[in-house]
């Protein structure tokens, strides 16, 4: 029996390509090492074959003749779907221990990338946000709490308000007051604002990048919790417009996919996407195989065609062109919707944001260095842009200095991981934050960074009907609402601790932040004192 198994294993190896060497190379053999190792406890394994069915990469394989499970580790992306679904916990998937000679300069990742490019000649793709060890400023900022001199507030029993308005505010109100204060009337013209019940909004993730079910889950959760989701640049399916339009920020991006007058008018707000933190300055390609019939209809391009988003919007080559599109959208929506402009955080972000506000935007959205993506060239994701904390502090300061901070709300995105990050962002000056990756993780994502393959085992970043069925919008939206609820509670607790009972009193209130382990210039940019100062 043992011999037979040994023979079989040899055969398996050959089939999966692990042939030891060739006499004379006929075709290019991959020199890549597997990224993950799979450890299967044979004692626990009951041959139920769940792992085999759950893995869209074809990593696991059952051999009926031997009644044994085999795996091809080089296919494994480490998404943990099999480990989670294994009923007997028989699987451990962890980073592969095999290492090249340790080298601080030539890391395993760099060597693997070189080999991959040598084998394909291509641009290396990746998904999710920048995973490089740039300084995470959230982790160097600490919050304040009341002790003695003013009381902390108990959020469980006393009112604690998170309601936020996004949009342009006038400098002053002209109010006509009647004799006995009965007939009070606002005379000033007000700008459109959109109200959210918690300062957390779902980031732009397009239908196309993510599945219909994932997209709908975000819409449902946003509606239920009284916040917003963002359609991304792939349009809003007709079937969701009536139910969820009023919870949507609809994007107008360089591809102008699915942008029709109705799309603009059903939304809560319109966002012009200039850039994305994960890939500032470049466009995007949704590969043709993801352009299914329904996506084709929503985006208005033929089925199976690459959906190409050019790098720039070709009617915006400068700030006055941006102004032209902002007002075009205000015209197209009868001046009833706030218009947001989303940019990636780059070197001159403060000046650019000022220009955006002066160009007529009601909201400035800034996406930082660690912002996520469904697909981006790795070299761009890992090297272009600046951290959101510094960008936010610089923008808020600049707009205040110019006396135009009230003319637009600031939404930030890219690298928010928990409610502490949210509250620190608000203290640095944000009106609200976008969350993308946390929402995906709530739905099942494990940040395996393989979003671009279209084979997401969690049914999120895929259009394969076999996989998308795994995500039930009823359940996924519940997970999202739970996340919003949990974070909102935590934010209330932290606010109460600071003796604040309305989120607006923390906005831009950097007195409640202190820096730890930061250099002088960093404290200066952030506009916070060092701890103990």
């Amino acid at each position, binding site marked *: 029996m043992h011999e037979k198994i040994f023979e079989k294993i040899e055969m398996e190896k050959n089939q999966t390509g692990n042939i030891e060497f060739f006499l004379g190379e006929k075709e290019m053999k991959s020199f890549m090492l597997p990224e993950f190792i799979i450890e299967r406890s044979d004692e626990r394994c009951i041959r139920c074959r769940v792992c085999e069915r759950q893995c869209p990469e074809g990593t696991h394989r059952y051999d009926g003749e031997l009644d044994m499970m085999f795996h091809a580790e080089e296919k494994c992306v480490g998404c943990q779907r099999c480990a989670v679904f294994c009923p007997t916990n028989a699987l451990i998937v962890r980073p592969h221990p095999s290492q090249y000679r340790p080298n601080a300069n030539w890391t395993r990742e760099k060597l693997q990338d070189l080999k*991959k*490019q040598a*084998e*394909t*000649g*291509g*641009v*290396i*793709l990746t998904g999710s946000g920048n995973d490089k060890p740039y300084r995470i400023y959230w982790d160097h900022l600490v919050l304040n709490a009341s002790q003695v001199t003013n009381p902390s507030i108990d959020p469980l029993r006393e009112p604690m308000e998170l309601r936020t308005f996004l949009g342009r505010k006038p400098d002053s109100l002209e109010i006509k007051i009647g004799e006995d204060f009965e007939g009070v009337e606002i005379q000033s013209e007000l700008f459109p604002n959109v109200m959210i019940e918690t300062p957390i909004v779902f980031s732009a993730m397009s239908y196309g990048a993510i599945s219909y079910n994932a997209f709908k889950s975000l819409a449902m959760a946003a509606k239920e919790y009284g916040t917003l989701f963002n359609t991304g640049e792939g349009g809003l399916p007709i079937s969701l417009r009536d139910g969820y339009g009023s919870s949507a920020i609809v994007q107008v991006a*360089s*591809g*102008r*996919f699915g*942008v*029709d*007058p*109705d799309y*603009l*008018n059903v939304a809560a707000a319109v966002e012009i996407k200039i850039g994305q933190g994960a890939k500032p300055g470049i466009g995007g*390609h949704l*590969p*043709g195989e993801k352009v299914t019939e329904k996506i*084709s*209809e929503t*985006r*208005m*391009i*033929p089925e*199976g*065609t*690459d*959906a*190409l988003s*050019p790098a720039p919007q*070709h*009617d915006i080559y400068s700030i006055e062109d941006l*102004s*032209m599109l902002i*007002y*075009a959208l205000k*015209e*197209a929506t*009868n001046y009833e919707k706030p218009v947001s402009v989303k940019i990636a955080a780059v070197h001159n972000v403060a000046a650019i944001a000022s220009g955006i*506000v*002066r160009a*007529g935007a009601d909201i400035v959205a800034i996406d930082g260095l660690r912002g996520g993506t469904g697909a981006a*060239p790795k070299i761009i994701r890992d090297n272009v842009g600046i951290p959101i904390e510094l960008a936010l502090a610089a923008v808020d300061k600049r707009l205040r*200095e*110019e*006396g*135009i901070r009230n*003319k637009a709300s600031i939404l930030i995105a890219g690298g928010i991981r928990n409610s502490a990050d949210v509250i620190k962002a608000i203290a640095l000056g944000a009106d609200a934050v976008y969350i993308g990756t946390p929402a995906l993780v709530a739905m099942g994502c494990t940040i395996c960074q393989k979003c*671009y*393959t279209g084979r997401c085992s969690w049914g999120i970043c895929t259009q394969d009907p076999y996989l998308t069925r795994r995500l039930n919008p009823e359940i996924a939206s519940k997970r999202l609402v739970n996340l919003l609820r949990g974070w909102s509670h935590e934010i209330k607790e932290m606010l109460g601790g600071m003796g604040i009972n309305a989120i607006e009193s923390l906005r831009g209130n950097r007195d409640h932040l202190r820096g730890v382990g930061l250099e002088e210039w960093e404290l200066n940019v952030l506009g916070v004192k060092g701890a103990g100062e």
Partner: protein
Amino acid sequence: MVSGLSLRDMFLEGVRPIEKLLRYVEIEDDRAIIDASELKHKEVNDLLRYVALKHVTKVDLVNVVGQRYIGTRLHIPNPSPKLEIHIQGTPGNDLGAFLDRHRIIVHGNAQDGVGNTMDDGEIVVYGRAGDVVAMSMRGGKIFIRDNVGYRTAIHMKEYVGKIPILVVGGTAQDFFGEYMAGGRVILLGLNLKEGERHKAHYIGTGMHGGIIYLRGKVEDYQLGKEVGILKLEEEDWKFVERQVEQYCNYFGANKEKIMEGNFIKLVPVSRRPYGKIYAY
């Protein structure tokens, strides 16, 4: 706050309420005349929306000098009748941007961004037009009598039966049909001299959908590497003839003479032009 930096809205500054604008419009039954000479960008559309809601179907917009977005704010729920807007003068950028069903006729030249992300309707220009004509156009028709500028028909789209059409009588500048994802574009080159080639370089670069019909001479190196040249099939000829006929109806050219010219058909080599540049 630094003095003098306060925000001034160059677009909305000085815009008057609709009551004050009514003296610029005359309505008689379903016809109206609007004098745009003293109107700001937004005021023009305020009045157009006003007359549309009064069930006007034809409006003469006279003395136009650079006002933008004409026709953009006419997406009116509970469908009002289609409006036909005749423009005298020079309309500003983004003429008919996001246009919804209506018809715009320009008796003169147009500027940049004609029919930007236009959804439906028709725009006819008795003159030339500037850059990015028909950008991301989704439906409807545009006829330009003379030349067009850079990046015409960039990222035009289509879906099943909804196919936008652009007909240009003259020639075009660079990046004609760049990123085209759908639609039909006809470039007639009527004002080129005998044997003179079209002026555009990088024609159809990044094109991955739709069709360009090009009449007149063009060198290979003027074409983007994502397009292939084909001969017109019978169906193509029929389609082109129909559009040329309409062009001639509008602008009074000789259809037979136009159809005698040398046409080529440009189509994308691949619907996935950049499928191979990535390492997965």
